[in-house]
């Protein structure tokens, strides 16, 4: 680990002031510390935000929830309001990591997890995300866990979060404080960048900009679930995951919100998937059309080719479950 300066923030404003010059915020540290040990990340300064007053979950006027950025994953998953109104989020959180990690990991930090690409973690491998312009050893290397959607020539890494997938399905909004004192409300759909030529730039956050809250709009109608397919029963990243809420009125799908993990360079959501469902009677015709829409642009790189049929199968099973439709 490289030596670094350390600052303790007392208020969000001081955190932003400390963070603006080459600082990295640290809260739970469940990912950042590992990356620093490996020198994948070498921040000159860490700004400890763990003592900020951002650990509450409040009701918002629109019927949603305003979640403090420091709410631990365990607490968020266990919150009765989340369990009752956003079960997809609770399930996604509990599908992630281990009990110990969920106790430390925070809501804001979880959104900013780095990829688990093997070559990103090995500083003696080429990785455009870690060292821009150095190349990509994942593309033609062992790419079993890497992405099939939203990839670029420069990078095929996946975003590893489960929570963010559910948040994406729920139309969550990231609330931030910038160094100029501005507060921004960034829909999660605008929060992540596609890798393109700049895979090292993962979000639209500006230097020093601090996530203070995540806002959830009023819960969607219908039934919801989070299904995660993985190599072992716990403590493994998703090969494919589906966060879904589906509502039915008069025998037709009236609303659908779906997001996917393990497939994309970011928590993946595609309006075409939902368009293929809404207005249609639940059934395999609509479900296959949704899968077709999701996977139209999917591209495997060899070891991860199986994710494409797996995603189709998982999506169809989830839709059948939520709509109580038989094959």
């Amino acid at each position, binding site marked *: *680990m*490289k*030596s670094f300066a350390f600052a303790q923030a007392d208020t969000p404003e001081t955190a932003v002031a400390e963070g603006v010059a080459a600082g990295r915020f640290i809260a739970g540290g469940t990912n950042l510390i590992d990356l620093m*040990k490996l*020198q994948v990340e070498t921040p000159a300064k860490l700004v400890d935000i763990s003592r900020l007053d951002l650990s509450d979950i409040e009701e918002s006027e629109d019927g949603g929830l305003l979640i403090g950025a420091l709410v631990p994953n365990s607490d968020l998953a266990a919150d009765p309001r989340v369990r009752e109104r956003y079960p997809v989020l609770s399930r996604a959180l509990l599908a992630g990591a*281990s009990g110990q990690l969920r106790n430390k990991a925070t809501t804001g930090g979880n959104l900013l997890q780095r990829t*688990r690409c*093997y*070559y990103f*973690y*090995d*500083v*003696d*491998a080429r990785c455009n995300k870690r060292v821009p312009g150095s190349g990509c*050893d994942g593309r*033609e*290397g*062992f790419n*079993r*866990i890497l992405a099939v959607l939203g990839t670029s020539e420069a990078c095929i890494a996946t975003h590893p979060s489960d929570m963010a997938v559910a948040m994406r399905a729920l139309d969550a909004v990231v609330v931030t404080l910038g160094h100029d004192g501005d507060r921004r409300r960034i829909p999660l759909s605008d929060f992540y960048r596609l890798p393109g030529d700049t895979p090292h730039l993962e979000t639209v956050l500006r230097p020093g900009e601090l996530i203070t809250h995540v806002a959830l709009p009023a819960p969607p109608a219908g039934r919801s679930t989070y299904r995660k*397919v*993985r*190599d*072992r*029963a*716990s*403590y*493994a*990243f998703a*090969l*494919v995951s589906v966060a879904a809420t589906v509502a039915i009125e008069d025998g037709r799908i009236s609303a659908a919100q779906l997001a996917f993990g393990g497939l994309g360079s970011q928590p993946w959501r595609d309006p075409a998937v939902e368009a293929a469902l809404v207005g249609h009677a639940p059934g395999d015709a609509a479900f296959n059309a949704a899968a077709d829409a999701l996977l139209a642009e999917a591209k495997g790189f060899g070891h991860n080719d*199986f994710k494409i*049929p*797996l995603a*189709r*199968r*998982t999506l*169809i*099973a989830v839709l059948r479950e939520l709509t109580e439709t038989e*094959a």
Partner: protein
Amino acid sequence: MSEDTNTLTMDKPVEQSLLDTSVQELIGKPLDRIDGPAKVAGRATYAAEYGFDNLAYGFLVRAPFGFGDVDGLDTEAALALPDVIDVVSDVETFLRNSQQGGETKAPTQGVSRVDYFGQPLALVVAESYEAARDAAAAVRVRHSAGVGEWDFDGRLDEATTPPPSQIKPKTEQGDVEQGLTDAAFTIDATYATPSQNSAAMELHGSIATWDAEGKLTLYGALQMPASDRLQLADALGLKADQVRIVAKYVGGGFGSKLGIAPESVAAAVASKKLGRPVKVVMTRHQVFEATVRRSNTRQRVRLGADANGRLTTVSHENHVSNLPDEDYFEPVGVSTHFLYPGENRRVTHEQVVMNWTLAGSMRAPGEAVGMFAIEGAMDELAEQIGIDPVELRLRNEPEQDPEKKVPYSSRHLSQCLREGAERFGWSERSATPATRREGEWFVGMGVATATRTNMLQKSSARITLTPSGTALVETDMTDIGTGTYTILAQIAGELLGLPLDKVEVRLGDTDAPPGAGSGGSWGAGSSGTSVYLAAEQLRTQLAKAMDCDAEELTLKDGQAIARNHSRPLSELVGTGMSAVGTVRPGKAEKQSNQASYGAHFCEVRVNATTGEVRVSRWLSTVAAGRILNEKTARSQVIGGVTFGIGAALTEELVHDPRDGRIVNNDLAEYHVPVNADIPPLEVVFLPERDHWANPLHAKGLGELGISGAGAAVAAAIYNACGVRVRDFPITLDKLLPGLPPV
């Protein structure tokens, strides 16, 4: 104080065991570990936990390329960093490879040549661990990288026959080809297993200190101190008595700590140079890259059976891998030699030289991977013949070792199969695959035989009876989490008539008599026998003090009883009594075939949509001679089965074909099972005594659980969903193509 010796060479069966006539009632009980409280309270000191005032911290520098030569190290930047003391590199002395277990010579030394990605090259020493780690990353390795051998499948034709080690690389009898031609039923299938890592919880680590006389003490995470000491001495140009190894607690080894690893010599060299104690603990990544792996295997199995399902032909042809100039080969066919009958037999091993991390022993070398193929082929044969796989194995119970024509020392495989089938509800298994489904889940059952060769190693232990009437057991044997402390205390207490709290066991220090070390499931039988022999000698001394014959003596609760009188041990021992017991392997291992046996019964659920596999029920029946401690024995089997489930479903070290690097070199992506993967594992011990094995009549157990376990999982998966996967691990991507459409 008198010290006598009692030595036994196992040349013939020992018909009478003192354990059958002693009365302290400690043997076999499910007693808690005597070292348990120290471990949970943090008082058990592991190698890296010894404190020294002026301790310096070392971090190994990694070769960032997979094959070639080191031209030099640029260390200026590293040396300029705060708290950095030195960059130590002795290119002749540093270890290129780890050493195998039991070897008495240094492993391959010399680090100017790089044979595998991540090979340690130098040691950065600093005032703190983080400073050393930071500086290690700042060392630039100037090198000339070449193209190494990184394509195993492409090199099968260039394989060579390795020299004999644990077993001969090639044996043949009868006529395999004719046998297959004549057989009513034949199987010809190829199985593959990947490289694996032991992934012991404790990382490899050493603290080296030198005294004024030039004697080295190494606190190490090591399974076999007696031979590790010789390896270390040879590597450093020292005499054996100039090296002391301390390994009182070891946090798992599973073979990976049988021999010394690069950090030990690096710590010793740096400590000598700097005149301070130096601690080197490998990171998880370094353990994966630069200690030892289990070789990948490619196994062709051909079976021939007559119309009754009786095997006539057993052929097991294997390809394994190791580094250049390394002789060790994974003994894949070790149990194929004796498990099933058949007059036509072939077992071969070919080595494919690869520029991959050293291959060596990992839990049940041979059986753990070989039985996946043999038992898998048996499952396929049963299906082809149309009989139950339990019945096929019962029909193939040999009268004697089919190759060496010697008797089995004890073998209750048929009983394990029958008892296990009854308890598990095997009769409810559908013979037709993919016929039992609960919602999205296929449910199936599988069975496999377990066997593991029983071995005896030379081992010594001293017992001292103190004037206060307590016993002290000393040997450099280790307890790597198996329960050795406890069973040695039980044996000593049982034979000397002392409750457990009157017996102290000191392990893992080469100042004590040399023990067997922990490996090959030989620890309990070998080290336990040395304690038995020492106690037997002390019983003779006590009888003398009681003026009676040893046979007349009863020892219980600290009292010696004979001829209607009773005296406390404390009165009899005078200034103290001491005895050293030593056991040596002898003719018994040639005159009999010694192995432990069991049967695994597994139920799995396979998700019809995703191909996810979950093991839902498990039963293992085990016959392994006398069980010394039912609790620690059960834990050994459970741990082994868990390993087997991991091998079957998740564990794979992935080598990058472009430079040989281990891609998934951490526990996030090298998937060992977690609790949620493992259902309650039921273990049933069948009563058995093995007179050929040792005076305890106990056989090895620690590796039996893994042997065959993965095959039971694979068979259950096939029974559940009808997809036969012959390539470990059985991850969902291998099942998906065979599952029904959604």
